[in-house]
């Protein structure tokens, strides 16, 4: 194979790639923050004594976890306006990723909650805390620490899913990479650089998550 690497064309637009990365990170953080709230509510819903609540949470999870994210993105962006719900590209993507991550995080939180000994909740109740304060002060903080590794894993995976926002022309990293690719024809270089940026970004996220994990870990 005879190929002359020429990264200069990619370097010229490197700031575009970085701004794309920045947007991707923002999209991930905002969506996952909302997804965490959805997941937390639904996880308690899954464990509710009331059957309709359990049922509703289960329907949500199976609907959104079993649909490919790309289909959800396209549905939200193209189909919802037909139904009268008009969102901008970025809002539309955030809604999609939040809803989708909510389904995954429900399962993460649910497994964390069932792993807790029932006595923990009872101990909270016996010192006069209400059910909801017991959740806020005891159950959720302990559960959160237990699921942190799984949460981190999901975060990285969902961050990579932001690349699919390129499908609806959200100007994130993959979108710009494709643009540079089309304009410069430096196919190999462009996608190599884009991949490396993803790998690097994910490694840094993983390192940060590990730090948070050890910072929050319960001494024993």
């Amino acid at each position, binding site marked *: 194979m005879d190929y002359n690497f020429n990264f200069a064309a990619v370097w010229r637009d490197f700031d575009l790639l970085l701004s794309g990365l920045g947007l991707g990170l923002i999209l991930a953080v905002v969506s996952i923050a909302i997804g965490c709230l959805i997941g937390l509510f639904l996880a308690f819903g899954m464990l509710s004594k009331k059957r309709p609540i359990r049922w509703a949470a289960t329907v949500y999870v199976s609907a959104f976890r079993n649909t490919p994210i790309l289909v959800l993105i396209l549905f939200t962006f193209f189909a919802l306006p037909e139904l009268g719900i008009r969102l901008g590209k970025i809002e539309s993507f955030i809604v999609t990723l939040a809803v989708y991550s909510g389904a995954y995080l429900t399962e993460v939180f649910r497994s964390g909650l069932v792993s807790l000994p029932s*006595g923990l909740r009872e*101990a909270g109740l016996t*010192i*006069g*805390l209400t059910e909801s304060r017991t959740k806020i*002060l005891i159950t959720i*903080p302990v559960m959160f620490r237990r699921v942190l590794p799984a949460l981190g894993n999901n975060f990285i995976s969902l961050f990579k899913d932001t690349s699919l926002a390129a499908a609806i022309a959200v100007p994130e990293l993959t979108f710009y990479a494709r643009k540079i690719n089309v304009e410069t024809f430096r196919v190999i270089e462009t996608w190599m650089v884009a991949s490396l940026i993803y790998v690097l970004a994910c490694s840094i996220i993983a390192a940060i998550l590990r730090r948070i994990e050890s910072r929050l870990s319960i001494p024993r």
Partner: protein
Amino acid sequence: MTAPVLEITNLHKSFGKVEVLKGINLTMQSGDVVSLIGSSGSGKTTLLRCVNLLEDYEDGVVAVAGEQIGYTQRNGRRIRLKEKEIARQRAMTGMVFQHFNLFPHMSAIRNVMLGLIKTRKMRNDEAYATAEGWLDRVGMKDRKNHYPGQLSGGQQQRVAIARAIAMNPALMLFDEVTSALDPELISEVLAVVKDLAFDGMTMLLVTHEMQFAHDVSDTVVFMQDGRIGEEGPPDQLFHSPKSERLKAFLKSSKF
């Protein structure tokens, strides 16, 4: 006359179709120490858990300091109290569990302080001083900053006792508090409980430690099949049991 600390009248409780409490009557005055003994499945722990409504009950009345726990009567119908009311009532009693159930993400002193701050509305420094005092009382002051995972079972249980009693409850409930402990750690926990008993704390205990029940109780209650089989002062129950069931139980408990 002041109301009894605990008054249980005709208490019934079922798990599904299985009736585990079949009409319990029990009254405790201030300073009383009552031990519940009996084989597993006789309903001792369920009875204890009805007192602070960790278990709902279907019929009868559980009253602490004259106040019915968990329910109220309106137009002849029994209505469950609001969540907030139940939380307030639960804080009238303190409970120590078989498996300690300390909050693992908090240091020993934080465990004791949480209820003082959130339920008793103490200021932080006030709660700290109170918690430290109780940890000292149970011999855990020098480990106040340890986390539960860094403590032995006996130490965790002593912190759990401090956590419950620091709330200044009218009645302490002890649910087999030594059953999960290694034999060499049992005595340190029993010593703390005994200390509180002799100090005049009103206590209802479920225990498998017969010698301990004998030494510490004013009244011993032998439960069988969801009913009170026999009750009386410890000397009477342990040394001249009336029923064959109690005789057999005491023999199998190696008393």
